[in-house]
């Protein structure tokens, strides 16, 4: 068991899957000679060559479409889009093609692609580099959407995504690439479905995904110091949502906070609250609270950016609210 960075975990998954199956290729902007904007493919061009680590032009919709076409003929492409904001350009091929081809062909064709992309607010990158957009993909039938919160899932979910026969969207986060965590030395696969109880507790459930799990964990530490045992639930997969694990946690704690880095409207929190109401409305002792971004494009100014994006204290305040402590 070694402690490695999130980007190293992604790189290792690429390396192992490329070695395992010649049909696996990686494609994206600057992933080859340059090694990837976040180093997630560094060194692989030298190891596997230009035909398997493909530097693409800045043509997101069509290089994604090329990956999809290749997948229909037996390839296993890992497509990197440098920022989820740029994935808007590839929505036609991702949503109109990859998500629908299996269905509209009556199950006769399939698109086993992986699309990886960072989707979060980093550090003053301003409005056109800071959108999160997970909600757009999680609302699309025919896709799987996962949000690894640390190196183990970043490694093990990418490996599972490559092997899986469905199109999988992996949403990473600029602020997590250097985050470190333990990953087993032996080959490990992490499932693409299933929420995870990251920290067990009895008094309140803090639900997060992607980077917001870390906000929940930090808030749980502060709550513990106040004598509150918070349970932290990482959704892990935004599509499909693990309704059972959410229900079981809410039936235990009876109180819920959902932390999302995105804006609230038609978002992850809205969906999770709907799930809770449908699954276990009468288990609730208080109305659920969403922690979310301000309803604005993300501003450049550092202070304004911080104000727009939720932090651990916001999660703490929300928890105290559902606990009736404010």
């Amino acid at each position, binding site marked *: 068991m070694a402690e490695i960075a999130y980007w190293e975990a992604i790189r290792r998954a690429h390396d192992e899957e490329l070695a395992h199956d010649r049909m696996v290729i990686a494609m994206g902007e600057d992933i080859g000679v340059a090694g990837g904007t976040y180093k997630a493919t560094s060194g692989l061009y030298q190891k596997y060559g230009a035909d398997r680590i493909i530097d693409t032009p800045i043509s997101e919709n069509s290089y994604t479409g090329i990956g999809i076409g290749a997948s229909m003929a037996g*390839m296993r492409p890992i497509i990197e889009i440098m920022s989820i904001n740029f994935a808007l350009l590839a929505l036609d091929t991702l949503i109109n093609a990859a998500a629908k081809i299996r*269905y509209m062909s*009556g199950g006769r*064709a399939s698109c086993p692609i992986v699309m990886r992309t960072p989707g979060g607010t980093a550090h003053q990158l301003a409005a056109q580099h800071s959108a999160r957009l997970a909600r757009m993909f999680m609302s699309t039938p025919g896709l799987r959407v996962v949000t690894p919160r640390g190196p183990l899932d970043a490694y093990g979910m990418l490996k599972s995504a490559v092997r899986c026969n469905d199109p999988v969207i992996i949403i990473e986060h600029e602020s997590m690439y250097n985050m470190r965590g333990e990953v087993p030395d032996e080959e490990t696969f992490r*499932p693409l479905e299933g929420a995870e109880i990251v920290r067990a507790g009895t008094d309140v459930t803090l639900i997060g995904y992607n980077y917001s799990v870390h906000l929940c964990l930090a808030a749980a530490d502060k709550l513990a110091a106040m004598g509150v045992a918070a349970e932290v639930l990482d959704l892990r997969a935004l599509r499909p949502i693990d309704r059972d694990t959410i229900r079981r946690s809410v039936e235990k704690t009876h109180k819920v906070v959902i932390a999302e880095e995105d804006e609230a409207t038609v978002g992850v929190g809205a969906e999770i609250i709907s799930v809770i109401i449908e699954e276990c409305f009468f288990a609730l002792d208080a109305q659920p609270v969403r922690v979310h971004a301000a309803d604005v494009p993300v501003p450049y100014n550092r202070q304004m950016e911080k104000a727009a994006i939720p932090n651990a204290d916001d999660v703490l305040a929300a928890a105290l609210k559902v606990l009736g402590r404010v």
Partner: protein
Amino acid sequence: MNASDQKRLLREMIFYRRFEERSFEAYMERKIGGFLHLYSGQEAIATGVLERAHCGSDYVITGYRDHVHALKAGAPAREVMAELYGKETGSSRGRGGSMHIFDPTVNFMGGYALVGQPFPLAAGLALACKHKGTDQIAICFLGDGANNQGTFHETMNMASVWKLPVLFVCENNLYAIGTRIDRSTAVTDQYKRVAAYNIPSSQHDGQDIDIVMAAATDAIAHVRSGKGPYFIEFLTYRQRGHSMSDSNAYRSKEEERLWMERDPLKIYGDRLKKAKVLTEKDIAAMEKSVLEEIENDIVRFAEESPDPRVEDLNKYCLDDQPDPRWIGPLAQGEHHG
């Protein structure tokens, strides 16, 4: 080409015309729903190009005017008609309809309703062929209207840079839905546009199947030899509207009349008669046998086939038999942090 192949090709084109006309009738009877885009008038292109391809091995992909491409690529006519009827026995199990015919058993990889979307998909199929080191190629059929999408330019660029074995067949029927090419497109000769991407190209008459086959032979040889993509433009005309609700108000009667005279079935039939390959009587017998086959076998199969079961609504959304190693369930408590 020997006489029996010539007769077969004429019969195929007659079959495609009557197949489309019969589906039009079924549409008017409301047995076929949605949109229906007919290929009548353009038959020489799909028939001629694919006659020169390795159907069943080469990948073929196109837009929503896809019935004839699927048929010539090798999709059973019964299944294509059953798909138009939305039946479980259809090419896409009744889930796709007219615009989304698929038959991966013969490498016909679909019809797509997003104009220009097949460009990158075709290049991806070609990338897979190249990667596997087979002698397969990908053939992408699209209309002139698709060339004004970004995917055209993006894909031509990548296909050229990566020397992908893909043949782009542009069926220039002069209208992007209802807008004439000179009103929408700065360069009306489509084959000239790929010069910007260093892709060899040529323009030909798309109404004469002999010309189509000769041009396709050269283009396919280029692509299969590993020299990279080729773009071939055929000038043609659709005899009917864009889809069913189209009155053709944007076209002049004189223009329609001139192109109707250049009917690919007539051009080829007249040539074969003149060459004494067959007589007017032979063609009439051919027509009769085609109509009987379509009515007694193909339409009957479609009409008698069952609808998909509504209980199967969620089938085919994702892999219906996923491997639990990749999907889960997740064991709780094995990991914290």
